[in-house]
């Protein structure tokens, strides 16, 4: 199944994005393809890192009671579930937004790529 609002838009390492979707890299790297590629890669890596920071913070609130001597298996499962549900939430929001915008023809222009 392919979803337009896939993890690429939630800040992942960009399986859904190619060079043509990242015009900023071309502007920053200038004529040097090596630098351009470097910027693309590092930008994707940073998106990943930022989301890990964000999800760790959110899931800590949901999954951690009192910090113990180790991360018990229940807390670990909670963190894994939390990540999955966060991504699901993000995709859900994007998909539903896309649907509701399509039904309002006045707004559909502004959201299409």
């Amino acid at each position: 199944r392919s979803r337009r609002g896939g993890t690429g838009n939630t800040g992942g390492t960009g399986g859904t994005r190619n060079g043509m979707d990242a015009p900023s890299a071309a502007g920053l790297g200038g004529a040097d393809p090596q630098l351009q590629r470097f910027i693309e890669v590092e930008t994707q890596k940073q998106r990943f890192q930022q989301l890990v920071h964000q999800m760790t913070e959110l899931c800590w609130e949901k999954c951690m009671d009192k910090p113990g001597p180790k991360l018990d298996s229940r807390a670990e499962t909670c963190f894994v579930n939390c990540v999955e549900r966060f991504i699901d939430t993000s995709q859900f929001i994007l998909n539903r937004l896309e649907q509701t915008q399509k039904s309002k023809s006045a707004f559909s222009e502004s959201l299409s790529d």
Partner: protein
Amino acid sequence: MESGFGSDFGSDFGSGSGGGGKLDPGLIMEQVKVQIAVANAQELLQRMTDKCFRKCIGKPGGALDNSEQKCIAMCMDRYMDSWNTVSRAYNSRLQRERANM
């Protein structure tokens, strides 16, 4: 470069470009990577401090007592464990998404 790392790496990599005014993209990329790593470490530290302060410090006293310090130490380790768990889980999810496309 405001980071101390900038000047340390400058002397190691600068000789590679032969001195002079030419900008070596390899040097720039290495310095950028270092800056990014520093920024990520700072971000991690900031969030860890926030979370562990909330978990471990009740009514702030005149100093950090032993139980508070022990709590903070454990909290730091658990936060790192959590961060790694989240990182692995997110990575797995991304790979699964890519495989489904």
